[in-house]
């Protein structure tokens, strides 16, 4: 490897510095690590702009809604009072991949976050199967622009209050707007606009007042009515937003379109929480590797590399459970980085224990290829279940608590020893299982010809009922979209016993 000239020295940077760093980083990323990225677009922004980006869930633009203002005030006040500092970068899963870098970063930090976001996250977005399956990176920016202008048009035509009413209700259900088992069709701006136009044209073309005068058809005799009804509406249905958009009897077509916008944007964000550990682990591992190589090849000096080490070790800090800074759960940067570093170690210098636990990859001599395979094909739950090694568990000094509300105390039922490794690993992986963490609420029945009451069911796990107040409030939103009474039953998934019922009727507006 040639010893290159220094890319920069000191902390100051200009755009020429950024470009030199970017080129050097790109060489390592593609030649040595074999990363495949979307084309990059890097923007340097101020802290004000960073707050704006935070507000819109890290997106460069979005439609108008009061909740964004609320989020802005939250971030702003906590930033102004010094409770939190802003991120060094924000990266968007789009094609081209947009990275925002803070303008007050030092030259080293700019190089580090370029490696982290523009190559680490970018590679992950492009290759991980969840993102490939659920998000359409090339369409998202156009779609957001469409959503923004569509909602602005609705506000002009129908009033902000009417639009806000639909958005509020749809937002409360945004976690229930995904076909978990179906995958998604790619979205495309042209077809979205065409579809909306066709919907209007169809409505107009089929409108015929005569239909109103036809007598109702007789119900088919001898059929199991409930089963038939469920079949026709495609029930049970877990995608509540989709169901309301398609089947709610009272919505106007623009309201359905607004629900659809919320649903599609929610779907775009659906993979993010499922791969948080891997995504951050991947980006951190990549930036650390790239910066190390830059230092080894003499392209950054010792001072810069010390800054890199300092910054990385801050990011991957995992406070112990009794530390005041300990949050709920693990620091995704720390866990992801630790496991990925460990995978690389197992590939190159396995111990006897590693050979026993990871016979497939131990000593295969191809750490980057192995990691690329991991990044592409796993999500947090399966990743931890497969690759969390005893060594990492020992390093984190993990232990498992059993919290049984019938007992007055908590039981330590596994620690990092031979008996405990598998238990801990299974429990930790389960805590990242979206199937267990998202509440499973489904539409199970509705009588469209009768009283039109909508019946939902929540299948609970181990006595975890819905938060009562929030469930009622959300149910009111559903009732507002449905237009008739809505009922929610909480059912024990094993015994089918009904544990709680919630009811809501639409508020009759004056």
């Amino acid at each position, binding site marked *: 490897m040639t010893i290159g000239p220094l890319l920069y020295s000191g902390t100051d940077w200009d755009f020429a510095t950024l470009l030199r760093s970017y080129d050097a980083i790109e060489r390592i990323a593609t030649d040595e690590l074999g990363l495949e990225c979307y084309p990059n677009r890097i923007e340097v922004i101020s802290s004000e702009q960073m707050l704006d980006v935070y507000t819109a869930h890290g997106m460069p633009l979005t439609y108008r809604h*009061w909740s964004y203002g609320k989020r802005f005030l939250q971030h702003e006040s906590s930033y102004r009072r010094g409770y939190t500092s802003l991120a060094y970068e924000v990266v968007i899963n789009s094609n081209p991949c947009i990275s925002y870098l803070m303008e007050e970063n030092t030259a080293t930090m700019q190089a580090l976050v370029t490696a982290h976001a523009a190559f680490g996250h970018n590679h992950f977005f492009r290759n991980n199967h969840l993102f490939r399956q659920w998000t359409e990176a090339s369409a998202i920016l156009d779609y957001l622009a469409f959503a923004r202008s569509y909602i602005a048009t609705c506000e002009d035509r129908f009033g902000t209050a009417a639009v806000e009413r639909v958005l509020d209700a749809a937002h409360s259900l945004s*976690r*229930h707007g995904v076909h978990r088992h179906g995958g998604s069709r790619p979205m495309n701006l042209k077809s979205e606009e065409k579809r909306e136009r066709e919907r209007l044209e169809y409505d107009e073309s089929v409108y015929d007042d005569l239909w109103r005068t036809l007598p109702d058809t007789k119900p088919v005799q001898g059929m199991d009515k409930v089963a038939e009804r469920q079949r026709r509406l495609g029930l049970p249905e877990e995608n509540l937003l989709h169901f309301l958009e398609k089947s709610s009897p009272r919505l106007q077509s623009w309201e359905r379109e607004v629900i659809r916008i919320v649903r599609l944007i929610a779907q775009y964000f659906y993979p993010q929480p499922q791969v948080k550990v891997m995504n951050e682990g991947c980006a951190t591992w990549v930036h650390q590797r790239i910066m190390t190589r830059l230092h080894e090849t003499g392209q950054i000096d010792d001072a810069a590399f010390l800054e890199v080490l300092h910054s990385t070790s801050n990011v991957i800090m995992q406070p*112990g*459970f009794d530390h005041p800074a300990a949050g709920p759960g693990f620091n995704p940067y720390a866990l992801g980085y630790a496991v990925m570093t460990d995978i690389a170690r197992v590939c190159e210098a396995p111990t006897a224990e590693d050979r026993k636990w990871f016979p497939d990859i131990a000593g295969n001599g191809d750490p980057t290829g192995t990691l690329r395979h991991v990044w592409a094909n796993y999500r947090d739950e399966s990743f931890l279940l497969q690759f969390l090694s005893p060594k990492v568990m020992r390093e984190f000094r993990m232990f498992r*608590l059993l919290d049984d509300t019938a007992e007055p105390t*908590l039981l*330590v039922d596994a620690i990092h020893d031979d008996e405990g490794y598998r238990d801990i690993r299974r429990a930790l992986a389960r805590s990242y299982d979206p199937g267990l963490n998202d509440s499973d609420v489904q539409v199970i029945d509705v009588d469209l010809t009768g009283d039109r009451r909508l019946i939902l069911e929540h299948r609970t796990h*181990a006595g975890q009922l819905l938060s009562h107040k929030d469930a009622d409030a959300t149910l009111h939103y559903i009732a507002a979209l449905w237009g008739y009474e809505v009922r929610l039953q909480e059912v024990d998934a094993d015994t089918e016993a009904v544990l709680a019922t919630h009811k809501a009727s639409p508020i009759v507006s004056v």
Partner: protein
Amino acid sequence: MANAARVAIDKNTLRELGQGGTVTIPADVLHEPSFHTVFTSGQREIVLSGNKQFSTGDRLKRPPGGAGGAGGGEGDGQGNGEAEDGFRFVLTRDEFLDLFFEDLELPDLIKRQIVATETTTLTRAGISMDGSPSRVDMSRTMRQSLARRIGLRRPKPVEVRELEEEIARREASNDDPDRLRALRLELEVALRRMARVPWVDPIDMRYRRFEQVPKPSTRAVMFCLMDVSGSMSESMKDLAKRFFLLLHVFLQRRYKRVDVVFIRHTEVAEEVPEEVFFTDPRTGGTVVSTALAEFTRIQRDRYPVASWNIYAAQASDGDNSGSDTQRAVAMLETDILPVVQHFAYIEVSLSAAIVRGETDLWRGYAPLAERMPKLAMRRAMERRDIFSVFRDLFARRASVA
């Protein structure tokens, strides 16, 4: 936002209203709900890091403050909810009141202001040539004087002094007597001109002019009348207090100065300070007309109609001794309604009284309210009713014309 402000009223923020400063609106008004589960019972497993001394089988005490294991493992949704509750919007008092009273207005305000133009104020109205010496505009006067002196070529005192000095010098040296004579002549002319052209002439005088401008009255007085007899419970008084407070804040936004008069009554009425009004319990019967009489007395005494906008609010549970209602209604019609801008009657009653149907006072006032739009009457049963009643009373009417 306006909605949030209204909800905040129900949550005791009202107290802050009277005090100024800022008003905080709790963010749970802006809560965004969703379906999420809460761990309440059963079993769950939590994996934590940083084990120092635990071995398998150890039992730990539950950390205080809930089922969460050592600050870890609590469900995501729960955590978010709590974090949001700690967050508040801060509005200044004015911002808050702007939102709060956004679409309310005082009834008949404009009409009355035009009628009640008894008070006047002095306003500068330019410059005049005459006036009292106390209003001389010195700089303008001197400017006039200077212009006139230049125009009439009045010799300057300095020039005269130089002439005199030169004459004196020449008299001493006594040469060139012709020149001396000429100088003396010149001095004589100058002195004569100086005597003829005065330093300040009456035509130079300029005075500041003021005019009496009629001004709409910006004072209001608010009479709070409340029945404090035994039948009024503490919660009823609380309702009344909320209404009075709202009205007070509302009036303060429209008038520079708002006086408040508290009149309480049982079978006798008296004016009391605010603290006594709301806290001191009384027992006894109820004779409403005494309070109305006290109102009229104080109003005639201290608040002439010409210079005060008068508002009155009466809170009662509706009880009155049988024979008195007629008298009260008559007093209201002849003495009170003609002088007030608005008279609000709030019947605070708990459910039992409502079941009984119409109360004595309600039945008495109702026909009057139909004839006289100034009298408005509403019922309030619960704390949350107060605001809607208030809004209802002062909602902006479309057809005022």
